[in-house]
């Protein structure tokens, strides 16, 4: 009887096989290829690309970012090249890179989500879709899809019907009870949930008496929000059965392991990529070291938290 030594870092999330649980978060890693001079993309579990819409989007006026204590606000406004240019210009650059590529998508109407999903469905090199529901729903007067369980579920079931790819739904933390949102999208058929997106925040320039960001508010990310993100992952892990991808302020393997132990099958590294473009690979090796030292596997660590 031969026992093949399995990769202790490998994990399957929503049917996607990841060689390790570390992915890069949408909007913090461009379209992936920009990081080739700085890091070895093939060492990553996966790459989630910048959010894609049907048409190219120019994004918000500037200033778009401001640093905050242990974090930053961004109001990029989902600037992106559009799904078409992604497929023709950006995706080919990742050919030959041994990592899962996830396309993050969004729209201002359910139809727009459907169209982007359809366009990506027959695209080689895309392993899954991640639906960003933290977007203003133009038909509902700008209320974001991600704070209304009914609207969120609508988007998810529509996208599920439009694609054969696994669907990950990315949840907004700007809600009273994130379990309600997670259950709604689980019932709507999502294959996994990812969380958290940014938390709405504001910084004011007291000399000008104006918000620093041109759009007044922006999304808070970085280590400042990590305790909130870990809490939400833990809550969601007790509420749903679909796998969870955790994120929010991960700067090190230790941080990533907090999410995994809380219940995340995989993690995404976001803002940290700006601080050190090679940090995601460092997170992978830190997790490998921990798994080795404890004689365990990532699979066994997922949700291994004891409470009470």
């Amino acid at each position: 009887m031969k026992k093949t030594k399995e990769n202790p870092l490998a994990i399957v999330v929503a049917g996607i096989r990841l060689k390790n649980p570390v992915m890069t978060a949408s909007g913090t890693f461009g379209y992936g290829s920009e990081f080739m001079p700085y890091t070895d993309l093939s060492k990553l579990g996966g790459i989630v690309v910048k959010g894609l819409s049907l048409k190219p989007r120019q994004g918000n006026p500037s200033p778009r970012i401001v640093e905050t204590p242990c974090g930053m606000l961004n109001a990029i406004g989902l600037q992106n090249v559009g799904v078409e240019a992604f497929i023709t210009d950006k995706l080919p650059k990742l050919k030959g890179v041994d990592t899962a590529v996830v396309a993050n998508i969004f729209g201002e109407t359910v139809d727009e989500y459907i169209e982007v999903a359809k366009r990506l469905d027959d695209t080689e090199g895309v392993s899954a879709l991640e639906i960003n529901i933290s977007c203003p729903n133009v038909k509902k007067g700008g209320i974001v899809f991600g704070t209304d369980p009914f609207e969120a579920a609508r988007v998810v079931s529509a996208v599920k019907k439009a694609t054969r790819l696994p669907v990950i739904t990315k949840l907004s933390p700007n809600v009273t009870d994130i379990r309600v949102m997670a259950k709604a999208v689980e019932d709507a058929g999502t294959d996994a949930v990812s969380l958290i997106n940014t938390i709405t925040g504001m910084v004011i320039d007291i000399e000008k008496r104006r918000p620093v960001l041109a759009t007044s508010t922006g999304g808070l990310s970085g280590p400042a929000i990590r305790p909130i993100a870990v809490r939400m992952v833990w809550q969601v892990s007790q509420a749903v059965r679909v796998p969870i991808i955790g994120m929010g302020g991960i700067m090190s393997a230790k941080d990533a392991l907090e999410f995994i132990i809380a219940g995340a099958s995989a993690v995404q590294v976001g803002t940290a990529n700006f601080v050190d473009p090679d940090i995601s690979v460092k997170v992978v090796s830190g997790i490998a070291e921990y798994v080795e030292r404890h004689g365990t596997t990532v699979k066994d660590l997922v949700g291994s938290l004891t409470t009470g």
Partner: protein
Amino acid sequence: MQEQRVEILYNEPVSSRYFRLGLKWKTSVIVPGHFVMLRVSDGLDPLLRRPFGVYKVLNAKGRDKLKGDGIELIYQVVGKGTGILSGKTPGEVLSVLGPLGNGFPVPHPSQDIVMIAGGMGIVPLYLFASTIKRGSLLFGARGKAQTLVAKDFKALGLKVRFATEDGSLGHKGYVTDLLSGAITPGTIVYACGPAPMLKKAAEICAKEGAQCYVSLERAMACGIGVCLGCAVKASAHNERENKNYVMVCSDGPVFESALIDWDRI
């Protein structure tokens, strides 16, 4: 372009709020206008790197004097990050990402060169001037103390004219007051400084028919074109190229002034 940990050679005050920072740097050639992103602390606050232009290449060898043993930055203490930086001592090691961005375009040998700097805008222009070794500099500052680095400029043999708001040195008023008188339609102008100064310089050059390149500053997170945080609005002309925003870090920091929408800077 890689992230590297480099040793501090020196970190000396030029005046109470300005410091010269020497860093060991052997890896890559610097082009004038390049900048680097420094991490001032291994902690989480401040979280993001800070961008600084390159002022000098130390012990530069070879024809273009752009590869040497080290680089010198000059920075002004304005907040948390630069405050921490000013406390660093020789021998300590800093994480540096760079060189980044696109430098100043090389002028045609027949072109007259005018450099115009405001405050810390002097930094990239000095490296440019020390390579190109001709042209004149118009330097605007708050007061006499801030003009110390201008000595280095004079040592290059270039003509320097000052403007200070308090009149303590040179022209009393804005440095852009001196620009019309210094340029002709054939001149190429290199400008670096605060946005209002650049806007004024761009207007004057447009009016006089001079070419104008500006080096912009913007709050940055990544420095490598991926966060899309350092956007500035492109001019209508550029809008036709389907680029409504340009990124200061990766499309710039040096831009032809006509590419920028100066009303929304």
